[in-house]
């Protein structure tokens, strides 16, 4: 009895509890060792015996864990929606060029700001301008995609146009890099590695305000996504306005991934892999069950990756983008091997 809802509810609760534990583990872990009872007292009373510890927990680790949670949830739900919309298991949230748009914005910003002001790039990286540039970049691509999606009738054409736009923006970024100084290229590459650290509460606030409406909207698309599983024509026959639905998914994923990418850089792998892990573990394509599962597994995986990226007991950190793939790919392969009788797909 694979499809018993009771089974699924229990598994979902377990994954949710794991997310809470991992959240605290993420706050607890870092290059500086802080005793666990001190961490707890800082989180509950915001006081501790050491001012530095309080500062590190409240202004560095806590926002980072919050951002990891948001990214895990946002990228995985976006990936799921895109895979269902295009009925293609290889689709990911960035497939329509949203991240290349953000990259272009950031690349332009880094080149321009160093050319004009000669600012030190380390301060450029954390600046508000960089985020604005990324939002503008992904926003412009998003608007182009939305316009295209209203003109083009079928999903595959839209996918192709999206990939073409991504290629063009990537090519422009390459040209910009070619004409840039090594310092500029370095600071751009640092951004593409992705980073959750150094995000202030102010930035987290902006992120949350963009994230929550889009996230709630995505949750509401669940019912129509189920109808889309049968294909556009059947979904239409069941009362789904296909164009409106396509537009809704594109807007929701664009706002989610655009916001996240702007603040943390493009973080790969989560969006394409987590929906598959959820489908394999829960053995369902029903979005009512799959969506919560995907979100929670995304959060779990992202928190684990963040913990690993800090290399516990070590001073340096790994780029998060590398960790998600190095750690995540074996997880996906393991899940597929342990369910060999199942077929992959959407």
């Amino acid at each position, binding site marked *: 009895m694979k499809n018993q809802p009771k089974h699924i509810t229990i598994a979902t609760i377990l994954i949710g509890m794991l997310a809470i534990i991992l959240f605290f583990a993420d706050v607890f872990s870092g290059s500086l060792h802080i005793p666990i009872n001190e961490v707890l007292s800082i989180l509950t009373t915001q006081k501790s015996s050491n001012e530095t510890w309080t500062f590190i927990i409240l202004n560095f680790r806590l926002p980072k864990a919050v951002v990891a949670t948001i990214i895990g949830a946002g990228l995985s739900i976006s990936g799921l929606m895109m895979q269902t919309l295009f009925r293609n298991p290889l689709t990911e949230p960035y497939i329509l060029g949203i991240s290349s748009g953000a990259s272009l914005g950031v690349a332009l910003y880094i080149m321009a700001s160093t050319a004009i002001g000669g600012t030190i790039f380390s301060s450029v990286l954390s600046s508000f301008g960089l985020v604005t540039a990324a939002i503008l970049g992904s926003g412009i691509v998003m608007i182009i995609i939305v316009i295209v999606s209203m003109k083009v009738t079928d999903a595959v054409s839209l996918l192709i146009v999206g990939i073409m736009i991504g290629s063009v923006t990537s090519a422009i970024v390459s040209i910009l890099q070619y004409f840039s100084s090594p310092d500029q290229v370095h600071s751009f590459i640092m951004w593409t590695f992705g980073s959750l650290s150094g995000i202030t509460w102010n930035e987290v606030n902006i992120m949350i305000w963009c994230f929550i409406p889009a996230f709630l909207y995505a949750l509401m698309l669940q019912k129509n996504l189920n109808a889309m599983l049968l294909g556009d024509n059947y979904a239409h026959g069941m009362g789904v306005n296909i164009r409106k639905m396509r537009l809704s998914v594109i807007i929701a994923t664009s706002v989610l991934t655009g916001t996240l990418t702007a603040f943390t850089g493009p973080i790969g792998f989560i969006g394409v892999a987590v929906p598959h892990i959820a489908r394999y573990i829960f053995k369902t394509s029903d979005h009512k069950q799959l969506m919560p599962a995907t979100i929670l597994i995304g959060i779990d995986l992202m928190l684990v990756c963040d913990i690993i990226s800090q290399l516990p007991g070590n001073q340096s950190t790994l780029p998060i983008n590398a960790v998600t793939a190095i750690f995540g790919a074996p997880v996906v392969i393991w899940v597929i091997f342990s369910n060999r009788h199942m077929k*992959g797909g959407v």
Partner: protein
Amino acid sequence: MNQSISYDSILRTINLSIGYKTSKKETLTVLSGMNLEIFRGELVCLIGPNGSGKSTLIRTMSGMQPALAGQVLIDGKQLLAKDAMHNAHILSVVLTDRVNINNLSTFQIASLGRHPHTNWLGVLTEHDKQIINTALSDVGIFNLKDRLFSSLSDGEKQRAMVAKALAQDTPLILLDEPTAHLDLPNRVEMMRLLRNLARTRNKSILLSTHELDLALQAADRIWLMTPQEGIEAGTPEDLVLNGSFQRAFVNQSFDFDMATGTFRIAYTTNKKIKLSGDCIRTFWTKRALQRHGYMITDETGGTEVIVSNEFWQVVQPKKEPVICNTIIEVLMALVIK
């Protein structure tokens, strides 16, 4: 159980024109001025040669493509090409699109038919579940409801899609070539099923098909579409008797046997032969002879095959009569010089 048709119409088309907009200014009209009707509890088969516009008509009547002119009224409500949800309450569809879902059970597939009726979360009430279970029983796959849809055979999958359409609980169901992917027993079974549903559940069913034999037997009425003469509606028998059926399909390679209501491949005949005897074996002998290019005549004096219940006797001029035990022996005896 077997209610009769009440002859009150559930679907009416008023001056319907179908076709495509090929560019901003030009339209390609496939057919125009159609006034058609489907009665409650009636099974209508839409047949016609390839390219006659069957798919266009089905797509237009299901609201997937706008009509060029005129309107479609279902249960008194107008079909609106722009309002999918409105249409989903008055008609449900079963399409030729292949459904490839790996991780949904048969019950979950059928439950998607409740989509227009459930709340924004898509939660199934007890009432919904009951309707879905009834639909699954009606198509005879209730015992498969917990099986994965992907593990079903083609025939069972098609039944699941019909269950989905039933669960949608609309007065009209449109099916686009529902027998296309099925083998012969499943095709017959699917037609029988749809016919019974029309009667017992008082559903109006319109389906397009290439199965002329099945359509002739199962349909209450036939919509016959031809590129030359447009669309003609009538009972299968009326269309046969007035010759429309034959005009639409019969050509050099095809014969329609009015006596049996079946199609025959038309073989070129050049050799005359007389066949006598009247039993089942005579009928099958006739088929074999016709396939081999013999024309059955009543002329005596030539070659003759006499069929009896025990054996065949081949009588040829200037030759000894030959006794045969199988038809192949008959055929061989006829060619041996």
